[in-house]
Structure formats: structure tokens, C-alpha cells
């Protein structure tokens, strides 16, 4: 899932200080599950902002709610009136949600309440770890199900490097060495031969290096005709 963290309160206050009607919008999807932008966080942030305002003698109006998925226009559309009535949207979703609203309401100021951090996995209650960078060309079938792009500090394709010691990474001894883990996993599976071949440089064009990525599923797209029909129904 997308893992995010709330921005420090001071930073949020600074972003919205000059605007009066603040609408805080959370998201019930990934950021709710990673305890960053669900209904609870939205309510807590509003309480914190109100307390801070009271302490510093500032007056602002707050409203807050959550959407099913903030990155989808249909869900955003449902709160159209509330967005139009506010001076600033404080988005408590990942940057995708914030940008969806910003693109739909170009005249509105949209500010991020969260820092979108990574694609991560909840390892245990209250702890998430990054396991994918979204490079667009998955190779984990050759590495024992462990992604060296995300989990090796150097994103090496032929590891480990000389900085691997006792299964840890030289960048930070708390991080496991991905290539050590890959070696152990393949050893367990009896597939160490996979490590004998030298991997050529990866094709990075499906990654962000090729500019903003757009995926199109022609078979799923609606035809002009279908679109017109839908509009007619609505």
C-alpha cells in the first residue's frame, strides 16, 4: 500500500495560516490503513489546529471528513459543494488524492497534510517497510521474491557489494542487506545457480526516468459512443 506520514503541525499551520475556511479531507484507503489520514487522523488534526489557534489567538473555520478514495474523481465529486465553499483544502491523503482535487478545482488552494513516503508493507502494528519502488519492470522471480531495487541501498542488480557485513547494510546497520537475504533465500530453495549469471543493466524506461508514466488499457477504455450513452443516462 501507499504509506504516508503526517506533516509536522507547524508546517501545516504555516501552509493554511492566511486562509479562513479550511476543509480537511482524509481518505479511507491506504493512508487510513497506515494510520496517517483516516477519519481519526482528520479529527485529531482539526482538534490540534483548533487548540493551536486558540492558544495563538487565530480564528479559522474547520470542516473535516473522509472520502472512500480521494484519488478518484467520482468520490471527490460527492463533496463538490463543500470544496467550493472553502478557502483551502487540506488533503490528508497521499499526494495522488491531493492532486486529484487540485486538478479538478484549479482555482482552489490545495495543500498536503501528509508526506507520501513509499510503497510499504505493515511489518507489525505501527511499523511499515518499503519493498517496491515501482520501477515498472519486476524481476523478483530471479531474486527469491526479494526486490533488490527497493531493498538494496544502491539498487544493485549484481550484489552484494563490499559493504555487506553479517547480513547488514553499511549504510545503516539496522537495515538488512537485500543481497544477503536474496542469497539466503535462494540457498533455501536450492536455486543458487540463479546468482551465477551476471545480470545486464536493467531497462529503466518503464521507470520514472522515462518521464511521467501513463498506462492505458485500450480494452477497458470507454468508446465515445459509450461515454455519450453514459452521459445521457446520468
Amino acid at each position, binding site marked *: 500500500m501507499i504509506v504516508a506520514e503526517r506533516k509536522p503541525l507547524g508546517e501545516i499551520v504555516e501552509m493554511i495560516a492566511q486562509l479562513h475556511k479550511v476543509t480537511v479531507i482524509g481518505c*479511507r*484507503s491506504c493512508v*487510513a*490503513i497506515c*494510520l496517517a489520514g*483516516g*477519519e*481519526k*487522523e482528520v*479529527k485529531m488534526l482539526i*482538534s490540534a489546529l*483548533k*487548540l493551536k489557534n*486558540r492558544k495563538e489567538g487565530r480564528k479559522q473555520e474547520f470542516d473535516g471528513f*473522509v472520502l472512500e478514495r480521494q484519488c478518484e474523481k467520482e468520490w471527490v465529486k460527492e463533496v463538490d459543494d463543500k470544496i467550493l465553499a472553502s478557502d483551502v483544502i487540506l488533503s490528508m491523503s497521499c499526494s495522488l488524492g491531493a492532486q486529484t482535487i487540485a486538478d479538478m478545482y484549479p482555482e482552489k488552494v490545495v495543500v498536503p497534510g501528509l508526506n507520501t513516503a513509499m510503497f510499504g508493507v505493515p511489518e*507489525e*502494528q505501527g511499523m511499515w517497510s518499503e519493498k517496491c519502488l515501482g520501477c515498472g519492470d519486476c524481476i523478483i522471480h530471479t531474486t527469491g521474491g526479494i526486490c533488490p531495487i527497493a531493498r538494496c541501498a544502491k539498487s544493485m542488480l549484481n550484489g552484494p557489494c563490499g559493504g555487506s557485513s553479517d547480513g547488514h547494510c553499511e549504510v545503516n546497520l539496522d537495515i538488512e542487506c537485500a543481497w544477503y537475504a536474496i542469497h539466503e533465500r535462494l540457498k533455501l530453495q536450492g536455486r543458487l545457480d540463479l546468482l551465477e549469471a551476471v545480470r545486464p543493466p536493467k531497462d529503466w524506461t518503464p521507470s520514472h526516468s522515462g518521464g511521467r508514466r501513463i498506462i492505458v488499457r485500450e480494452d477497458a477504455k470507454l468508446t465515445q459512443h459509450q461515454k455519450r450513452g453514459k452521459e445521457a443516462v446520468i
Partner: protein
Amino acid sequence: MKRRIQVVICRVCSGAANVLDVEKLLRVANEAPYVGSAIAVNYACNAKTIAQIVEEAKSREVDRMLIIPCSKSDVSPALFQAYKKKAKINEFLMETVDLVGEIVLPHRDNPARAQAKAESKLLAAITRMAMLEPLQKSSEKMRTKNVVIIGAGVAGVEAARQATQAGMHTILIEKSDKEVKAPGVVMPKTRLVSAKGHAGNFILTIEAGEKRETLECAAVVIASGGDWSDAKGPLVQACGAKPLYRLVQEIGEGIISREGVVIVDTPDPKADITSAQDFAWEDAIQSAIEIRKKSPETEVYLLFQEMRALGLDELSYRDAADLGVRFVRYDKKRPPHADPKDKSKIVVIDSVQGQTLSIPYGGVYYASIAPNPDNVSISEALRIPMTESGGLRRGSMQKGPIATPRPGVLVCGSAQFPRSENISRLEGRAAGALAAQLVSTGIVEFGGSVAEVTPDKCSACLTCVRTCPFEAPFIGNAGKAEIQLQLCQGCGMCVGICPSKAIELHNYTDDQLSTETASYIGGDF
């Protein structure tokens, strides 16, 4: 619903009369919205007074009651029962306010401050009271009257005796094949594998050799004891130190060394003892006393870093000292050790007096008992948290000294930390009696002020499932969290952490809590 509150202030016990202006408190209460009656009584727990309060409640047609008794934990359950039966008031519409502990005691030197605080507390409690909803409990029949006891040591056998006397069927499971004299069924060479269900209706899986079987029971008593196997440490190697229970046995058999007995807290005195181990000091002191009585020429030394004897056992320090038992405190940086020149002596530096002692000995014994390693599997099966030193944790003090955090599961004897034999026996008896009390009703009640999920809001994020200490939430067939009421203890942990605010605790909802808090600070927040 009427939403009419009766406020009852106990004049005597609440200590209010000495510090607070009770008449003014009554006026404040009477002027507050929703209050139907406010009275002050003497001894709210007295049968006559109860009758008076019930009469008042009926004539004023109140449906909820706010009681200000002597202390929150002692009297209120009994009072609530009385009012529930006699005045027909829903048990979830009765609450207490602890004016004594929170206001009278801390502010007794400043009556004006106490009065102001008491008034705002009273008003906040009335605000809350008016918002409460009546709740109903559900109940379920127990399928059996079995009480399973784990461990046939001193505590376990005593628990079996007590529970049998009270008419329960006890099943004692014991991992070894030692001979056990206990009533009820005894299953030797048997261990607990897993447990399902809840208080009143547990289903345990037990293993005897290769064979596995299930066992229904209404309550479980854990009496797993400590680990009595020999420990390692420099004193064991150099002086042949033995565990304390061997000394107890030897005294019983009349074998007492004349050359002196040294009892030390641990066989490895260099180690940091406070975190990892526990000690049977009561038994150590009692043994020392007995040795001095039976064999006055035997010198007895107790070497310790930290000593504690609980409750009345503290008196035995003096008895021991009067009989000439020597207490020597040492510092772990300068631990007692065998004299390098003469192995029949132990050298210790008394950290209080700075004196170096060279003690000749006939036997060295250590008072530490390691926790039972089986506690890990018992903890996993019954889902009882463990203490840092490897014992099984008890519940909060309100649940009593023998209860675990899990209803229907009791723990006694050295399963938590080392107990003397006497205390183990006593706790075993208590556990047996409590188990019998629980089972004798034949009915388990649950529900009431428990958590409930609003399915539409649930993201099935598993946060509640991971957080709940009682494993009450699960993701149901609809793909949303559900709470198994029989397991929910109403602790509110899932409610607090749910990122989607999909869980509510009845009568502790956000609205109820924030309105109450707002009334303290005088407005919105």
C-alpha cells in the same frame, strides 16, 4: 427515555463533610439539567439508607443514578446490585464519582479550591450521566462445570481440593509422572496445547504423549510453578551451591550442617539480578529461622543485594535477627566468592559496614527460582501476557490478586513469580474458590459496555485485530471487522486506534467523552 438523574452524596464516607460544603453541592446538582433528585445521606452502603434512596428514586421517577461514595472501587458494585434490583435501574445508568481520592484528600488544606473542583467535577459527571444509554447484557449457559488446573504442585493440588469441595469437577493436568494426591481427575504426563472459547465455555486441546484430545471446561487455573532445576553460576562451581528447596528438604529430614549455612540470592552474584530473576526470600528466612532453632550452633548467613518479604512475612526479619541469623548486604560489583586460599570459606564484603567477612560453610544455597519455561507455551495457548522475568502476568488490581487479564483464567503460586510454599497454598485455595464461584452460577454474562463496529466505516485494515489483547475482533464473512462479544472486555483499545473511527465503545463514545470534557473546561474544544 426519561433521562432523570438522582444524585446521592454519602456525607460520612465521602469525607465531604469535613472539607466540602455538601449543601452547596446539592444546590449545584439540583440546578443542573436532568437532575430529578439530589440527596445527601449518611452511610450510603447501609441497608436502611439504601431503602431510603430506593424510595426517593421511585417517587421522583429517576432512571439513572450518580453516587458519590467513599471510594470508587470498594462499595459501588454492591450498591449497584442493590439499586439495580430494588429501584429497577439499568446497571449501565449508574456511575460513581470519587470525590475523596481526587478532591478531598489532595485539597484538604484548601477548602475553597476543593469546593470549586468538586462542583465542576459533579457537573461534568451529571453532563455525562444524562448522555448515557441503557445497555443490556447477554448471557450464555455453561456447558460444563469442569475446572482445569495446570500443574500439580502445592498450589495446583490446593486449588483442586478447594474447587472440589465447592462441588466442581476438577481435572488436574501435570507434565511429569509424579504421584499426585488430589481429588478429581489427575492426568499425568499431559500438557496444554491450545485453547479456544471464553470464560464459562473453554475448549482446551491437551496432549498426553502422542495422543491429543479436547477438553471442555468453564474455568482454568494456572499453577505451573517455577523451574526447580539446578542453575549455573560461579557459586555452584566453586562452593557446590544448591537450590533453596533442597535446604527445605534437608531441614525436613533433619540433616543440618554444623559448619554453617550460607543462603545467597543467586548462584551468579555478579549478574544484574533485579531484572531477570525472582527470589523466594520468605522461604529463605523461614529456613534460616528453623535451622537456628533446631541447631543453635549452626551459623546462618543471608547474603543479598535486595531483600523483600511480603506482608506479614516482614515480621520474620526480626525473629531471624533475634535468633542470630546474620544478614549481609553485598554489592554486585564485589560479589561473594569462594576464598581462593581456602575453598571451605566464602568471602563477602558487607556493603553497609565495609567489612570483609570470611565465612566457613557446610552448605551454600541460592534463593533464586527461574520462571517455568513452560510459561511460554501456556501464555501462547491461553493468551496471557508474560512478565519481563518470564512469569505469567496478572490482571489489574481491580480484578483481584489471582485473576489474569483474561476472564475465567486464574493464576496462582509461583507461576507469576516465586512464592513461598505457604503463600502458594493460600493462593491455590483462593484460585480454587474463585473458579468455583465463577462456575457455580452456570451462566456467563457478556456484552454491555463493549465495542461495536460500524461496518460501513470499516476498512478491514486489521488494526483492531492486531491490537486487541483479548482477540475479540475478527474480519467476518462480510469482509468487515466484527467483535466477538464473549471476548470483549470493553477496554477500548481498538476504539482508540481504529483509523477509520469505525468502532465505538458503548457509553464511552466520542460525543459522550468530549461533551463531558468540554463541560470541565467550559465550552467547545
